[in-house]
């Protein structure tokens, strides 16, 4: 009773306009708080303050990035949009892939929680992105996980790596989603701030596309899934302690850790339940609950509709005792969804939920008013125009300034670094380096087989899954970002990330269609970081325009720093591709036919700035990244797809970190087949083996197809060079005139690093 009296209502707010409110502790600036008062014409209630503060946070409102992200829209032409069924602004972009199928995909970050509690942080990151995909009406069909950790040998890295990989594995495996790719990068800039990005792809019949809408006066709002508890409330517990004077007996709470615990089983049944109600055609709109929980879901649903919304918050099933309305609104309890359902379908909806044993509760309805009105035991605790919460957050023009140190960084090239004499030793050192070593220790912890449609997965360049069992149509996805290149030149580095992901998709034989990204940067309050950010956005957007594929959505994560030092700027780019028949996928391993020719497509230049060799051999980062020529990437992509279509290519692998020799070794080890590498006598062997020039791939071509394939390359103007022969008998890899290795030696070197570090 005592507590109920203390609930802050709109009536109370009108009566006590001068009450001191802890808005600063909730992260709101003076002028932001003033704007809220102006919008409402009074002070906000405690619940309203909680809503605005989370929804106007950097994470939810994109207040620092908005002005720059607009550039994506400005550079997307009508032509690039032709396959786009939904774009930026929806929960996730949707692309038409043909045969009546639509595919949606998105990457999100869960960086900070994964440092505090690696297992749960990473697990709930997967859970969140999967619900985003479900909110589009799609069935999640695959996940991928681009990861960045501190230096492999650093003290704390082991704890974080083990927890994150275990968490992603546990959650994804338990959901039954094949993990088909990702990245694993170690760099000391991530020591106190790992990057845990999670990507999910979903598929649906085009007609099932569901956008988050709440139209139709009288339609019911149903909350379903897990009960709401105190998890992830973090900042909002400030309210409780401020208002109720701190000590626990009087109802205040200790500051809660903003850690959420995931329950993948609940999410799995939630997926099945969602798909069943969508298939039955009994939902008007559907929305996931992620960051900012019910605050976000109700305000977004309401502002996407044409009316207002009424919510009886006390009907929300709770897991903790004595929660305040502000806490219920801000809780980030996982595995919850919200649906808008026409009154005549409510019973059918609840029946599906009962079948899957999913808790479902009608919590409100769409009204013909303008406002989102939330009550608590009959009293109004929120009465706001929903758009002001969801979309009209502050927009900042943060100062942007190219750092003065950038010139010195670029001037410090790799030209002066001593180059090795013993190439054999360098090959092995590079192969064992944590960033080039086999990723099996990670990927073996992920189920890549479930759902029975995985055609390519680690260690292939891209993950590929079959979408249609009749026609064989499938999708492919790859994520990439070399943040060292981005540090040297954010614009070029971001284009290189795009180029690499694009190339990786093409290497599997798929045609790249669309882009999503996860932009991980330091503090937006640092003008130098904002410069990196702006340049990276422009690089990706301009690159997409050159390639003719649109950015369909993405995610921004700021404030990534170890101590006060920002992480290397890390705009992770994900490219989605389509393949009309997965049967013609191109594997990465050689050995389909002995005597095949290995061709290097593209041109190798003496480019070592920012390379893996510069890092491994000299701990050096400086200079300018390799040149990115996207017209060339596009041509390379077309040739790879044509080669796959005409059965001219039996294996392909892109050349990136570690250079040509790393690519060839991987092709040999994946295919468990030996090869001979032939170098150009007129060029420096070191450069040929280790340079990281962009726009290159190695392909294996059957003897019978060699002439036809090389003539096609020549005719279309793509440089190629015969760089080796597959030798099934030898069991070894020979670099002619340089060194020879047994496959066993290479495999042991490649596979030993991660188990040594993390087992």
């Amino acid at each position, binding site marked *: 009773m005592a507590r109920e009296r203390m609930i802050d209502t709109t009536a109370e707010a009108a009566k006590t306009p001068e009450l001191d409110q802890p808005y600063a502790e909730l992260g709101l600036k003076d002028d932001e708080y003033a704007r809220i008062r102006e919008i409402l014409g009074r002070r906000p209630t405690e619940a309203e303050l909680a809503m605005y503060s989370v929804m106007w946070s950097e994470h939810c409102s994109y207040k620092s990035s908005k002005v720059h992200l607009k550039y994506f829209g400005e550079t997307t032409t009508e032509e690039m949009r032709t396959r786009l069924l939904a774009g930026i602004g929806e929960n996730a972009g949707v692309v038409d892939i043909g045969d009546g199928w639509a595919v949606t995909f998105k990457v999100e970050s869960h960086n900070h929680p994964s440092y*505090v*509690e690696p297992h*749960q942080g990473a697990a709930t990151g997967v859970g969140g992105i999967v619900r985003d995909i479900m909110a589009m009406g799609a069935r999640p069909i695959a996940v991928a996980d681009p990861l960045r950790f501190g230096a492999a040998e650093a003290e704390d890295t082991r704890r974080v790596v083990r927890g994150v990989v275990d968490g992603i594995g546990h959650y994804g495996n338990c959901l039954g989603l094949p993990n088909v790719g990702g990245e694993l990068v170690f760099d000391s800039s991530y020591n106190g701030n790992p990057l845990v990005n999670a990507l999910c792809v979903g598929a649906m019949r085009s007609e099932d596309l569901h956008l988050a809408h709440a139209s139709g006066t009288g339609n019911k709002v149903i909350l379903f899934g*897990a009960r709401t*508890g*105190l*998890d992830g409330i973090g900042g909002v517990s400030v309210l409780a302690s401020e208002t109720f004077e701190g000590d626990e007996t009087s109802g205040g709470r200790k500051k*809660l*850790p903003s*850690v*959420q*615990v*995931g*329950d993948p*089983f*609940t999410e799995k049944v939630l997926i099945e339940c969602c798909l069943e109600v969508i298939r039955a055609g009994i939902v008007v709109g559907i929305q996931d609950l992620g960051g900012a929980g019910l605050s976000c879901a109700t305000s977004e649903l309401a502002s996407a509709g044409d009316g207002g919304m009424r919510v009886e918050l006390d009907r929300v099933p709770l*897991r*903790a005792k004595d929660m305040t309305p502000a806490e219920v609104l801000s809780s980030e*309890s*996982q595995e919850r969804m919200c649906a808008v359902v026409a009154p005549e379908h409510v019973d059918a909806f609840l029946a599906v939920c009962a079948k899957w044993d999913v808790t479902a509760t009608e919590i409100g309805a769409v009204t013909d008013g303008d406002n989102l009105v939330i009550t608590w035991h009959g009293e109004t605790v929120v009465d706001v125009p929903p758009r002001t919460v969801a979309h009209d957050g502050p927009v900042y023009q943060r100062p942007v300034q190219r750092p003065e140190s950038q010139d010195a960084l670029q001037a410090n090239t790799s030209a002066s670094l001593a180059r090795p004499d013993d190439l054999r030793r360098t090959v092995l050192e590079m192969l064992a380096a944590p960033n080039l070593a086999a990723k099996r220790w990670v990927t073996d912890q992920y189920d890549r087989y479930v759902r029975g449609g995985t055609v390519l997965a680690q260690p292939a360049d891209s993950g590929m899954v079959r979408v249609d069992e009749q026609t064989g149509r499938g999708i492919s996805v790859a994520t990439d970002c070399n943040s060292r290149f981005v540090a040297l030149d954010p614009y070029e580095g971001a284009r290189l990330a795009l180029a690499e992901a694009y190339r990786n998709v093409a290497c599997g034989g798929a045609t790249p269609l669309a882009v999503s990204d996860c932009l991980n940067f330091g503090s937006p309050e640092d003008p130098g970081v904002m410069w990196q950010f702006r340049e990276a956005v422009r690089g990706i957007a301009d690159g997409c325009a050159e390639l003719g594929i649109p950015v369909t959505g993405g995610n921004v994560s700021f404030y990534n720093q170890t101590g006060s030092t920002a992480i290397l700027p890390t705009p992770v780019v994900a490219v989605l591709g389509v393949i009309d028949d997965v049967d013609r996928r191109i594997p990465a391993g050689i050995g389909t036919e002995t005597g095949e020719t290995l061709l290097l497509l593209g041109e190798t230049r003496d480019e070592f700035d920012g390379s893996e060799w510069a890092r491994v051999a000299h701990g050096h980062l400086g200079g300018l990244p390799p040149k990115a020529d996207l017209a060339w990437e596009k041509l390379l992509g077309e040739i790879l797809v044509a080669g796959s279509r005409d059965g001219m290519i039996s294996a392909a692998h892109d050349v990136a970190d570690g250079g040509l020799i790393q690519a060839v070794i991987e092709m040999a080890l994946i295919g468990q087949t030996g090869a001979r590498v032939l170098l150009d006598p007129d060029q420096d062997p070191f450069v040929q083996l280790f340079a990281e020039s962009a726009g290159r791939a190695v392909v294996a071509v059957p003897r019978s197809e060699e002439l036809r394939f090389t003539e096609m390359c020549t005719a279309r103007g793509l440089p190629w060079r015969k760089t080796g022969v597959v030798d099934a008998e030898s069991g070894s890899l020979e670099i002619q005139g340089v060194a020879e290795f047994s496959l066993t030696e290479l495999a042991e070197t490649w596979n030993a690093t991660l188990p040594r570090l993390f087992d």
Partner: protein
Amino acid sequence: MARVVVEVMPKPEILDPQGQAVAKALPRLGFTGIGEVRQGKRFELDVDDSVDDAALHRIAEEFLANTVIEEFTVRRVGS
């Protein structure tokens, strides 16, 4: 040699999906009258007499329990 028991339980405010699953299953198996269930871990350690309570506390705090989401108790139960 002493026997030490460390008990680790999820914090009350943290979701315990395992305990919930058990609680939900019991009535289906015909067992009624059980309210909330919480599931944690129990460690039995054989400990040299040289190991003092402070060391045991640190082992529990830094290693056996994840104090972000769990709480623990340490108890000597005899030798």
